[in-house]
């Protein structure tokens, strides 16, 4: 199992001012380490206390690696490692971190360089030099920038996990080769991505096939009803309109049958995304709860 964070984990706002923000960020970093989180991208809401706080936290971390392939200081020097390589279950993963483009308000001279070229250069290096099987980009970027990366990455990237606007859970979106994954938000979910790594090529979304099967079931009902109505119609213009409807249903049905028939899609690597809800049904860890309540007493505004 590999635990990763797409960034924007530590602070409520990119600008400082909340007296409890440091204590919260330190507790979060400590707990991410304890959970075995392997890597995290540095996002806008991780830089609220400037880069020194985070660089120090990164150096002191037992396991967690803070990554950014495009964040540089005033001298153009990288502040964080661009990537890391980890082997899990015999599979070599390359993990790349990305930060948003533009100047960082909390640290003069620090700037996020254009993320897409930085991600492509690092991902290609991981494929070619490190021979990784799967490249995951942890993209702490606006959604539109992550989307752009997914369209321009070719086969250099397998997954892009995007954080920035707290978009919440969603469905995987494959553009060309890479698949965009929404990781959930505000500690309310864990995204769980099962990978089947037999074969080559882009990862096929198994839940897409399941959705297509369900859509086919609904469409078959609608098609039957449309045919029954057509049989009962006598007026020529009404019949013509209904015939067009039936024809469009049948065309859609053909496409869905293709999607749901085994062997019509490329065999090989596949994935299945689901979410684990972290609601009241998940018991609190007593020791962590004590630490939380020291910062956010029960009944306080943030609790």
């Amino acid at each position, binding site marked *: *199992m*590999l*635990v*990763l*964070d*797409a*960034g*924007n*984990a*530590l*602070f*409520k706002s990119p600008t400082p001012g909340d007296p409890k*923000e440091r204590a*919260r*960020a330190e*507790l*979060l970093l400590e707990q991410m380490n304890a959970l075995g*989180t392997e890597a995290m991208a540095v996002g806008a*809401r991780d830089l609220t206390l400037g880069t020194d706080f985070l660089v120090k936290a990164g150096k002191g971390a037992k396991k967690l690696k803070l990554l950014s392939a495009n964040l540089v200081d005033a001298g153009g020097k990288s502040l964080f490692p661009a990537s890391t390589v980890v082997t*899990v*279950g*015999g*599979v070599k993963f390359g993990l790349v971190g990305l930060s948003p483009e533009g100047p960082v308000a909390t640290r003069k001279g620090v700037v996020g360089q254009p993320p897409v070229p930085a991600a492509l250069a690092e991902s290609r290096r991981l494929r070619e030099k490190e021979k990784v099987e799967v490249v*995951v980009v*942890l993209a*702490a970027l606006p959604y539109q920038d992550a989307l752009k990366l997914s369209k321009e990455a070719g086969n250099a990237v397998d997954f892009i*996990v*995007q*954080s*920035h*606007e*707290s*978009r919440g859970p969603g469905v995987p979106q494959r553009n060309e080769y890479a698949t965009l*994954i*929404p*990781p*959930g*938000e*505000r*500690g*309310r979910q*864990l*995204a*769980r*991505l*099962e*990978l*089947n*790594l*037999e074969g080559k090529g882009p990862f096929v979304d198994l839940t897409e096939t399941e959705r297509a099967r369900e859509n086919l079931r609904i469409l078959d009902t609608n098609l039957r009803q449309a045919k029954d109505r057509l049989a009962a119609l006598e007026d020529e213009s009404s019949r013509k309109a209904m015939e067009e409807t039936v024809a469009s249903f049948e065309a859609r049905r053909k496409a869905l049958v293709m999607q749901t028939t085994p062997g019509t899609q490329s065999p090989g690597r596949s994935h299945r995304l689901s979410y684990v809800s*972290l*609601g*009241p049904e998940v018991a609190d860890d007593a020791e962590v709860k004590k630490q*939380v309540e020291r*910062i*956010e007493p029960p009944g306080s505004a*943030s*609790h």
Partner: protein
Amino acid sequence: MKTRPRLLVLLALLLTPLVALAAPKQVVLLFTGDNGGEIAPCG
């Protein structure tokens, strides 16, 4: 000719562990993101 069934049995026994090891390569990834400084999510 008599030895052939024994050979087949032997081969089958030898190959069984290989078949058992050839389980599909599967890995589970867990992601978090956009936590936004949250330490006490309340729904």
